[in-house]
């Protein structure tokens, strides 16, 4: 009977789709696990003792990014490349976390903002949609905003660890970031909301810099020279 046949046919479509999603979910779980490991490595920079060996922590994180690249490589094979946005939701969250982690490593290494190209390279994916599994602009921006919040925490903890120069540099960096974002006309709701959070991060860092200023600790820093 023709109707029955058609429904069986559609059922085939749906099953295939579900299988793909199941496969994607599995790889994404592994990616999340690795992301959590990188986070654990990098989190220790907030501890007083952690400030001493940032470079070694970055190296360790870089190594873990190799694993990430293997997983993203595997992820690409799980679905037809032109259907990226069909399954986008599955990896969106972890990708934003990974962008953040990559941006954090790069910041700790060079105190500069990772570009979209660099992130893509670190994660083993493309920048341009045409070239394959790529990094969506909004995901890149979301990851960068997570970094801002992490850096405001770092500013606080670097004072505790006795590093009075870092907060000032973080302040400048976040201010630049804010200027950049302000030029964007964000329509996308979740991104806009995250961007609103940036203002609170900025406020927090400004408080730290102010606290250092009134105690003359910034001058001391400049005089003594740091990093």
């Amino acid at each position, binding site marked *: 009977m023709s*109707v029955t046949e058609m429904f069986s046919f559609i059922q085939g479509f*749906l099953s295939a789709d579900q299988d793909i999603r199941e496969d994607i979910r599995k790889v994404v779980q592994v990616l999340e696990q690795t992301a959590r490991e990188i986070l654990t490595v990098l989190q220790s920079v907030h501890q007083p003792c952690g400030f001493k060996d940032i470079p070694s922590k970055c190296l360790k994180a870089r190594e873990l990014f190799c694993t990430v690249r293997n997983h993203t490589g595997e992820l690409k094979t799980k679905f037809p490349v032109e259907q*990226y946005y*069909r399954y986008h939701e599955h990896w969106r969250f972890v990708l934003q976390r990974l962008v953040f982690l990559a941006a954090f490593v790069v910041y700790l290494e060079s105190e500069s903002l990772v570009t979209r190209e660099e992130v893509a390279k670190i994660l083993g994916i493309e920048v341009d949609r045409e070239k394959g599994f790529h990094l969506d602009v*909004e995901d890149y921006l979301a990851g960068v905003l997570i970094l801002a919040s992490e850096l405001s925490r770092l500013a606080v903890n670097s004072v505790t660890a006795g590093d009075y120069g870092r907060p000032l540099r973080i302040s*400048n960096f976040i201010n630049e970031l804010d200027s950049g974002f302000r030029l964007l006309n964000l329509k996308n709701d979740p991104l806009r909301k995250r961007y609103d959070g940036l203002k609170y991060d900025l406020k927090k860092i400004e408080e730290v810099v102010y606290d250092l200023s009134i105690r003359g600790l910034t001058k001391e820093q400049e005089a003594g020279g740091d990093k």
Partner: protein
Amino acid sequence: MHCCDESRTCTALWSLIHALLCFHSSTVFQQELDTKHDKHERLVKISRDITIESKRTIFLLHRVTSVPDVEEILTEADVKLDSVRQKIGQIAEELKGEDLHQFHRAFTPGMTTNTYDGQPTCHVTNTHWPSEVACVLTFQITPTDYLLGVADLTGELMRMCISSVGNGDIDTPFQLSGFLRQIHDGFSYIGNTGPYEVSKKLHTLRQSLGKVEDACYTLRVRGSEIPKHMLADVFTSRAATHLDPDEPIV
């Protein structure tokens, strides 16, 4: 105050980042974001137009059961559908080279209306499952859109069935009930395998089917009552009073 004083605090590094971020983002990022957003807006608008136009066509097709000049209406419907096809062409144009799913939500409402829109035309002329819809469209409809469209169609068919009964048309309900039952069984075969929206439609579909089954039941119960010896008599008088002579008789 927001802009660092280059001559003092900003190092070369900072100016690089500044350049990279402020200008890169205001041109490249913004352009990318804007393009995406504008395209989304256009798709929403076209989809809205398709919905309106499709609903008008459905409305027209409903009259098929009640007017004598079916051909004329079908021609009119075809003209309307042409404009729908044009608009779908526009969507296809917009999506050329894009990933369909990125903008999927933007035009889905319009497309599902259209899916069932194609159906009644075919259904009226031949009671078989129409497949030309797929050919009309120059881009692929996802199975989900298709299923949702079919589910919406059943609601319209149910309405058609009820008005058939009101008009004394006795064959249509029985035909429709078989057809709807097949769709219903198909949907319950797919069950919760499909996306959430499909499972949700199952309930409405079951209600529509229930109404059609009730209509058939009523016709059968009513028809059962005619005393055999009166049968001929009844229908001659009926035909004489207010029935067209060529109306199908039970």
